């Protein structure tokens, strides 16, 4: 068999492959032979580049694979995986030609540990909020008891808004609702929620805000676990009720808010007093008002009656005293009456002019005068004296 291996010919420019040809062929073979697949393994050597791309190795006891997850894919994830974490990756096996390296281009990454990446992100954000004192219960503000203007930050086309409106209408219709629309899930939701919270300062005489949404999957609710949203809630100018529709898990937004309600309806109940109860309170106050006035009036009348009695008593006493004085005076007057003296046999002599004649010298002979006796008068005349 004639032609043996011609080492020189094989090494010639015509016979040898270029590096790029090998990697290109290898890449084609790999991509054609291996479909998109799920791979399970432990993360190690994780590195996040400035570009936002993630590089790490996936390993088990006997082998390892280089992996890359580009920024446009990993942006959807709440947090990067930690070294040592058990994960599933959905990936495209390929050849990285520039480095001649076999690797997996990761399209999706799930943690198999409890809570997974979500939990990691949550714990990280929570630690940051805790460090800044934003989870301190002493920070929580008291809700105003009779709110008149309530802002609602939610999606305008979701059920949450209608639920809140129905409850407020029934319980406390004098409150005004102000919708501050924001997307609550998906791309841009985080920024819109933060912007909505920031815009609250433009609402005059605002009493409180309800921020929330109806129930959804864990991923749907994730926006409310964003550290940015949590910080915006903490910075809100009025008390915040967080109402992210889920009964069991607390979001960061819930933890930072002044009150956490399990649903938007529950938030509306917490935000408002019940009109019926307030009307009852008013009726009670009305009764106390009337009683208060009645007892004031009664007190005044009693005092008036007492005064009248005292006045009457004083008058009676005075009249009695006058009567005594009058009696005494009239007795004395009676005793002094000249008629009384005349009754005892005396008479008074008076001349024609009525002057009382007291001395003998006033009785010249022949003088006519009158004698006043007790029962009348007699005319008289002085006779010739002794001769």
């Amino acid at each position, binding site marked *: 068999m004639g032609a043996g291996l011609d080492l020189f010919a094989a090494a010639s420019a015509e016979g040898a492959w270029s590096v790029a040809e090998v990697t290109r062929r290898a890449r084609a073979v790999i991509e054609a032979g291996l479909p998109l697949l799920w791979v399970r393994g432990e993360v190690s050597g994780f590195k996040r580049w400035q570009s936002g791309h993630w590089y790490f190795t996936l390993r088990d006891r006997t082998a390892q694979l280089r992996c890359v997850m580009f920024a446009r894919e990993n942006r959807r994830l709440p947090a990067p995986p930690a070294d040592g974490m058990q994960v599933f990756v959905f990936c495209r096996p390929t050849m990285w030609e520039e480095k001649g390296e076999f690797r997996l281009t990761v399209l999706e990454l799930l943690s198999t540990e409890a809570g997974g990446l979500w939990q990691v992100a949550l714990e990280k954000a929570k630690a940051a909020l805790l460090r800044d004192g934003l989870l301190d219960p002493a920070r929580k503000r008291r809700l105003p008891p009779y709110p008149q203007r309530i802002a609602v930050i939610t999606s305008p086309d979701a059920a949450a808004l209608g639920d809140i*409106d129905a409850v407020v209408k029934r319980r406390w219709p004098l409150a005004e609702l102000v*919708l501050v629309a924001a997307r609550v899930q998906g791309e841009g939701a985080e920024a819109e929620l933060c912007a909505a919270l920031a815009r609250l300062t*433009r609402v005059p005489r605002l009493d409180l805000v309800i921020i929330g949404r109806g129930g959804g999957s864990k991923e749907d609710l994730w926006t409310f676990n964003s550290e940015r949203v949590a910080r915006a809630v903490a910075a809100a100018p009025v008390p915040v009720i967080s109402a992210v529709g889920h009964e069991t898990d607390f979001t960061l937004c819930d933890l930072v808010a002044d009150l956490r309600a399990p649903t938007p309806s529950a938030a509306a109940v917490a935000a408002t007093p019940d009109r019926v109860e307030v009307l009852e309170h*008013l009726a009670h106050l009305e009764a106390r*008002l009337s009683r*208060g*006035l009645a007892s004031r*009036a009664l007190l005044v009348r009693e005092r008036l009656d007492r005064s009248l009695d005292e006045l009457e008593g004083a008058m009676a006493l005075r009249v009695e005293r006058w009567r005594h004085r009058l009696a005494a005076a009239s007795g004395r007057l009676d005793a002094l009456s000249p008629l009384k003296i005349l009754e005892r046999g005396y008479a008074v002599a008076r001349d024609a002019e009525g002057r009382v004649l007291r001395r003998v010298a006033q009785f010249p002979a022949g003088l006519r005068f009158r004698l006043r006796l007790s029962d009348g008068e007699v005319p008289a005349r002085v006779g010739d004296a002794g001769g």
Partner: protein
Amino acid sequence: MERSPPAWETLVADAPAPSFATQLERLEEIVRQLESQELDLDESLKLFEEGVERLRTMRERLTATEATIKRVLRREDSGRE
């Protein structure tokens, strides 16, 4: 970032000024004073009349509103509601 205020400002110009909470506090204060019995009849009457008037307006506010007033705070970056 700071733009001219949205149409909101004109929307709220007609909003009622006295807060319900303030009115209720005043009413409760009136009741307490009337019950303290340290007033003369004239003052008591005046307080009573004020209390009754406040009660009336507060009841009206609680019962008259048929529907919640809703407003929308517009986005700064779009002229639409």
